[in-house]
């Protein structure tokens, strides 16, 4: 091996094996895992194959793609519990039910307790593994804040990981629960955050900068409106009146973009393609702690948003639109007059030949 190190302690850190225990048995749909397989910045292969110099070796234990089955696959869970996987990142996908309400039964489980033949609840696994984990990631809006299974009138008492472990909980490495919301999480947001944490565990990146809801600030610091390619229509007071062929701002059709923290309009959904309001779909606020109840009915206009929109529509917007359109038409949409094929040069240059 060369003695050159491209990053500090490269060889020492590359000799470390970091494990990822990826639990999908919360009350969820595995959508975050499925979406993750489409990520390209980085891709899962990039992480496993060590695409960045100085990355620890990463072993991902995920039921979605694992070669092993059953006991062979579950061994990592028992090894992690026994402290044999160090360091490891625990990813929880899906919300956690309230098992205080399920009596002798269960709302969510994985594996079997050998002492009584009953399922081991997902909550119990989180309680067993979280104290040993270097970092705990709540992946997706279900795991972060409860999400759809935690809707009003739900029978299971579903909640997010922080609601379960406590919002002040810290991992053995001193990290709070890292929340990556989204329903599902934008694929690159998942893999990029995972890569960041792995680099952090290797000493190559500082503690991730999280906001008060434990979201990485570089991903969730801006609102949908701040990054939306339709936001310009707001300034000129133009709002779509039907879904589909109308490219104007969707606020009057139910888009919640102005009050939602999410980077999808900037990043696109996958390799820059797709998204929400940037491609015509209303933002349904799926990254937010108040999702879904505080944003329903999704297709109805938000009252505050409607007032703001009306101000733009009837006051400032028409003026902006008028002067801007006039400038475009009379000035910017026309070539300078010196570009022509006549027998003279009118560019301003004084001919010297």
């Amino acid at each position, binding site marked *: 091996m060369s003695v050159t190190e491209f990053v500090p302690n490269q060889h020492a850190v590359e000799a470390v094996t970091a494990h990822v225990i990826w639990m999908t048995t919360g009350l969820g749909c595995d*959508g975050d895992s499925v979406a993750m397989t489409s990520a390209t910045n980085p891709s899962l292969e990039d992480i496993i194959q060590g695409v960045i110099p100085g990355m620890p070796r990463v072993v991902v234990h995920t039921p979605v793609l694992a070669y092993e*089955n059953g006991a062979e696959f579950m061994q990592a869970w028992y090894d992690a519990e026994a402290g044999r996987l160090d360091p490891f990142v625990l990813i929880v996908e899906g919300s956690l039910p309230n098992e205080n309400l399920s009596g*002798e039964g269960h709302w969510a489980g994985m594996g079997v307790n050998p002492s009584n033949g009953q399922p081991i609840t997902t909550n119990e696994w989180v309680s067993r593994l979280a104290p040993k984990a270097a970092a705990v990631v709540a992946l997706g809006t279900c795991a972060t804040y409860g999400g759809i299974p935690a809707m009003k009138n739900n029978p299971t008492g579903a909640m997010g990981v922080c609601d379960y472990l406590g919002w002040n909980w810290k991992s053995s490495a001193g990290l709070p629960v890292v929340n990556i919301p989204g329903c599902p999480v934008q694929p690159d947001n998942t893999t990029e955050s995972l890569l960041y944490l792995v680099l952090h565990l290797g000493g190559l990146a500082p503690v991730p900068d999280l906001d008060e809801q434990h979201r990485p600030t570089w991903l969730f610091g801006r609102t949908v409106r701040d990054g939306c390619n339709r936001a310009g229509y707001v300034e000129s007071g133009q709002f779509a009146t039907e879904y589909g062929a109308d490219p104007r701002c969707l606020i009057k059709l139910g888009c919640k973009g102005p009050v939602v923290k999410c980077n999808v309009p900037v990043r696109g*959904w996958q*390799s820059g393609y797709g998204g929400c309001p940037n491609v*015509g779909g209303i933002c349904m606020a799926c990254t937010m702690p108040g999702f879904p109840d505080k944003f329903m*009915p999704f297709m109805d206009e938000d009252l505050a948003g409607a007032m703001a929109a009306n101000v733009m529509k009837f006051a400032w917007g028409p003026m902006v639109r008028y002067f801007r359109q006039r400038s475009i038409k009379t000035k910017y949409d026309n070539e300078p007059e010196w570009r022509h094929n006549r027998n003279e040069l009118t560019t301003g240059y004084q001919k010297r030949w």
Partner: protein
Amino acid sequence: MSVAETPRESKILVKEMSWDPITRIVGSLGIHTEIDFTNGVVNKCYSTSMIFRGFDIFMKGIDPRDTHFITSRICGICGDNHCTVSCMNQNMAYGVKPPKLGDYAYNLAELADYMFDHAIFNDCMANVDFCEQMVKETNPSVLAKAEETLAPHSDVHGYRTIADIMRGLNPFTGDFYLETLQVARYTREMYCLFGGRHTHPSTIMPGGVSANITHQTCTDYYVRLMRYIEYCKRTVPMHDDLYDFFYQALPGYEKVGYRDTNLICWGYFDDPDYVDYSYANMTEWGRRRWVTPGLVFDGELITTDLVEINLAMRILLGSSYFDDWTAEETFVHKDPLGNPVDKRHPWNKVTLPKPQKRDFADKYSWVASPRMYDKRNDKYVACDTGGGPFARQWVTAKAGLVDIGYVKATGESIQMVLPKTANMPEMELEWKIPPWSNAIERDRARSYHQAYAALVALYNLEQALVEVRAGRTKSWNSFVVPDEAVSVGFAEAARGVISHHMVIRDGKVANYQPYPPTPWNANPRDTYGTPGPYEDAVQNTPIFEENGPDKFKGVDIMRAVRSFDPCLPCGVHMYGGGMVRKVMHMPTALS
């Protein structure tokens, strides 16, 4: 049990073995079995689900226009199928028909989903059970034979021997596995062009599609589609070579995952010239679909009528953690055509969860047991979806209704013509209805269905382009939510039937019952003791694995279960490496 005439006693080793979770699926399924290692068969199988969320409970009382957003979240891989079928269901309730471009957009998004889903599931999940590493660990003699066996279609796909194909499927190192991961990305970009996001879409709506569809949308789709068609030209013959080899190397392999041909398919991809989403005309527009709906009992196509199919649906309990709803209110006595609706029909189902201890002799699953009622003999039949493609192609081929030129159903087969692509000439493929319903044929059908989906997409894209080029870019029509309505959406998720039944009262959801594919396949024994399809297919599966009970991996069982393309947050039983439950003394003549 008869008494043997020559009671020579011998030991029969029966082991209770479980796999939890079964990986490489969506959701954490596990399977609990009892295996007779002496005779190499599975005696018993239990499939249980350990997750309950209660969508139909917390959706009561919501605005019906929220249902596609909410139900999409039922499944992380069928989310778009839920969303779309919910929109169809709402279209029926609101009496709205999208502009033609909206209908084509529904189809093009969902066809891209099939192209993605079948690719990643078949070759990054299910076929890992057929990869070199797995075959080496479970059947070394089969791998040795594969090394010697030349692949009949090597000139098309480039793999010289069957073992070379198996190496291509090794996870994270095989070239075909890695290529498929990439294919599963650009096909989802295709989905995003019309659906906004995969798997929970942002632009699929009741009344049509809110994606802004332009020439650019179609061009971006087109170039990826042609790349995919070229991929299909290599992948279909490659899978034929691989699967045919298993029949040849392991005589009797057709019994793995075998069950009687009891199939259901709700049909998909509506023709905008015929579909009006109404219940009254559902029989006719259902038959115009580019995947034909159908109900198959014991190898016989009983009907292609979606109304008849709807009325035959029953939800039974028996081994599930739910209380019965017979004492609850009946929402729908007659369907919109005046036909009587059963109390056990989804329109009338009320979900009453009751968490309790798991007991394999009694209640052991969070999944209810959907059945199709056979009125000819008053039986409740446990039908399966064949993992999706098998039932879709079986019914479509048999019904013989689809003919769009390059896809033609003949009554016994489906003929496909794949156009010239960048590096390969035009190619013809034919999928013939196989003599049995088993693991290999479910997997093979999935490979052919990738080509089928691509060709139906090509047809729909050409039609969508006619609209866009004519300037008809409107893709959504407005609607009003009625105070009262009874409606249903029928479609096909990648892995099989998906239906949403809704009752609206006072403008709100009074009852909403989604039935996705995996509850049809993964359900437990019903009130009558009839096992669900996984249980049925795994029971009596012969064991070909060369490992004995101590190192047993259960690969034949895994192939049987994965052939259904499971997607359910369900889980089962696990015992370390398996424990000897009982050693029985039995006369050998019984076996």
